C-alpha cells in the first residue's frame, strides 16, 4: 500500500547499521514491535561510549573540580576542562574561555537575558526575535522586557515557515539592542539565514544570539565564521546526557557581562564587605557544576566528530527528502514547514486524525513521534492548527524506518476514515 519511492542511498561510506549497533536502546521492543525512534528533536539517544563515559568517570576519576590538590581532583578537573576544549573545537570558538557550561539552551538564554540583557537593554529599547521561536527564546525576553520596560519585536514568517527577511530588516530600529533567533526551528525544521541576519545586525552594531538547540546535531557550526555574539545549545540533542549544555559568548562581551548566580567557584576572593569575581568563564559557573555529564558531553562530541557532522547531515537530509517525497503522495497529509532550507524535521497534520491520536496509534507500531505544540504555540497559531505530529531524524535512522512510519500513517488514515 505504500507509494513506490526508491530510497536514495545517502552515502555508501555511511554505515548506518554500524552506527545503530552503538545505541543499546535501539534494540528495545515497544509494545511488541521494534522501536522506531523518530522523536530526536525532543531528545536523542545515547551511544554506548557516552553511557560508559558516565560510569567510568564515577568509577575511576570522580572528584570535585577546581578545588583540591589531590590526584582525583586534578584528574577530574582536567577531564572537565578537556570537555570545554572539545566544545570550543566543535563550534570553532577562538578560545575555550568563551564557553560557559550550563544546564542547556534554556538556561543559556536566561543567563544572557538576565546578565547582558539587564546591563544593556533598558526602557524603550527593543529585542528582536522571529515568529518561529521556541518558548525558550520568547519567555526570557518577555520577562526581561517586563522588568526593564523594553519592547519585544517579532519578525513574521511566511506560509512555508520561512522568515520574511524584508520585514525582519524593517523591524531593526535605532532602539534594537539585541537580535535573538533560532538557528533551526524545532517545530518546522526551517534553517534561518543566520549569516545574513548577523551581517545585517552587525552593520548596525547590534549583537546577535543564536538558539542552536536544534541546529547543533544537524549542521556544522562555526561561530567565528558566523561571527555570532552568543550561541547556545543543549547536549541532550547531540547524543550527550540531559542536563548539560553550553553557551558561547564572544570574549569581549563575556568579559563585560555581570555575573549571574553567586557562590563558590565564581569568585576569586570573598570578604564580608565585598567579593572579587573570578575570570571568564568561571564567573558564570557558580557552585559545583554537572561534572560527569560535562565529561560525557565531551565524549559525545568525539563520537559525533568521528562519524563527521557533514556525513550525518547528508544522511539526515537524504532521510528527510525521502520522507517528504513519500508524505506528499499521501492524501490528507499536510506538511507544516516547507522551507527551502530545512533540517531533518517532518512536522505534519492529517485531515481526519488529531495529532494525539496519531501519536498513540503510531506508538502501537513501535514508532515514537512527538504530538503537540512543540513549545512553539505561536507557530501553531500561525498555521491555525492546535498541534502537529512531528517525526525528526537522527544519525541512526534508516529509510526502512521511514517506510514503517508512512505505512503506519496510511493505515491509521484508513482506520479513522
Amino acid at each position, binding site marked *: 500500500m505504500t507509494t513506490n519511492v526508491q530510497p536514495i542511498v545517502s552515502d555508501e561510506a555511511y554505515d548506518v547499521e554500524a552506527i545503530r549497533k552503538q545505541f543499546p536502546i535501539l534494540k528495545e521492543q515497544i509494545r511488541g514491535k521494534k522501536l522506531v525512534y523518530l522523536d530526536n528533536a525532543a531528545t536523542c539517544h545515547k551511544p554506548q561510549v557516552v553511557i560508559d563515559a558516565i560510569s567510568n568517570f564515577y568509577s575511576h576519576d570522580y572528584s570535585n573540580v577546581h578545588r583540591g590538590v589531590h590526584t582525583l581532583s586534578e584528574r577530574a578537573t582536567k577531564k572537565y576542562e578537556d570537555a570545554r576544549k572539545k566544545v570550543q573545537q566543535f563550534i570553532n570558538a577562538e578560545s575555550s574561555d568563551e564557553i560557559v557550561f550550563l544546564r542547556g539552551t534554556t538556561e543559556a538564554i536566561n543567563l544572557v537575558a538576565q546578565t547582558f540583557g539587564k546591563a544593556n537593554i533598558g526602557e524603550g529599547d527593543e529585542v528582536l526575535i522571529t515568529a518561529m521561536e521556541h518558548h525558550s527564546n520568547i519567555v526570557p525576553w518577555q520577562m526581561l522586557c517586563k522588568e526593564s520596560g523594553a519592547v519585544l519585536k517579532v519578525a513574521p514568517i511566511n506560509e512555508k515557515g520561512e522568515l520574511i527577511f524584508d520585514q525582519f530588516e524593517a523591524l531593526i530600529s535605532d532602539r534594537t539592542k539585541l537580535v535573538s533567533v533560532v538557528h533551526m526551528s524545532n517545530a518546522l525544521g526551517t534553517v534561518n539565514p543566520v549569516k545574513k541576519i548577523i551581517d545585517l545586525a552587525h552593520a548596525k552594531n547590534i549583537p546577535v544570539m543564536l538558539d542552536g538547540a536544534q541546529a547543533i546535531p544537524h549542521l556544522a557550526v562555526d561561530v567565528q565564521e558566523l561571527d555570532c555574539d552568543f550561541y547556545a545549545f543543549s547536549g541532550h540533542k547531540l547524543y550527550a546526557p540531559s542536563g548539560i549544555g553550553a553557551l558561547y559568548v564572544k570574549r569581549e562581551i563575556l568579559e563585560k557581562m555581570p555575573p549571574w548566580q553567586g557562590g563558590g567557584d565564581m569568585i576569586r576572593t570573598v570578604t564580608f564587605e565585598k567579593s572579587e569575581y573570578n575570570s571568564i568563564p568561571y564567573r558564570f559557573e557558580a557552585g559545583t557544576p554537572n561534572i560527569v555529564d560535562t565529561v560525557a558531553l565531551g565524549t559525545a562530541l568525539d563520537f559525533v566528530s568521528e562519524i563527521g557532522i557533514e556525513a550525518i547531515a547528508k544522511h539526515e537530509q537524504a532521510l528527510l527528502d525521502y520522507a517528504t517525497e513519500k508524505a506528499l503522495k499521501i492524501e490528507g497529509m499536510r506538511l507544516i514547514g516547507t522551507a527551502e532550507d530545512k533540517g531533518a524535521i517532518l512536522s505534519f497534520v492529517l485531515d481526519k486524525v*488529531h*495529532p*494525539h491520536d496519531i501519536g498513540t496509534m503510531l506508538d*502501537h507500531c513501535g514508532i515514537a513521534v512527538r504530538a503537540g505544540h512543540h513549545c512553539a504555540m505561536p507557530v501553531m497559531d500561525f498555521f491555525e492548527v*492546535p498541534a502537529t505530529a512531528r517525526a525528526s531524524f537522527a544519525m541512526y535512522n534508516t529509510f526502512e524506518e521511514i517506510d514503517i512510519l508512512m505505512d503506519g500513517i496510511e493505515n491509521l488514515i484508513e482506520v*479513522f476514515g
Partner: protein
Amino acid sequence: MFEDLRDLYQEVIFDHNRNPRNFREMEDSNRKVEGFNPLCGDRMTLFLKVEGGIIQDASFQGSGCAISTASASLMTEIVKGMTEKEADEQFEILHKITTSEDEVENLEELGKLAVLAGVREYPARVKCATLPWHTLSAAIENKEASVSTE
C-alpha cells in the same frame, strides 16, 4: 495493524468522533464555558441550558482528538435531563473508569462511559477524556452567567 488498540479506540469512540452528537452552538444557553488543555492545545466550548436545576440541553464545539471529542459527545448525551448533582456524579464515575485498577468488566454497570476505560493504559491520554468533564464541572460550579465569555 491496530488490533490491540481496540480497547482504546472502540467502535463507539470512532462513531462519536466521526459524528459527534450535540456538536453545535447553543443560542439560548445560559452557561458557556471554555475548556482548554494547554498540554495539547485542545479547545472546547461547552454550552448548557439549565432550568430549575435540571440540565435541559447540552452542546459543544471545538477541536480535539478522537478521545476528547467522543468523551464530550457522550457527555452531552448523558447529562441531558440530569440534575446538576447527578451530572457531577457522572464525572466521579468517569474518574473511576479512567483511573481505577478494577477490571473493566466490573465497571459495565457504569453505563456508556465504560467505553472510555481504555485510556487508563495511556496515562498521557487521561486528560483528553476528562477535559469535557472538567469544563462541565466549571459550568456547574459557576452557576451565574459570569462564566460566559460574552
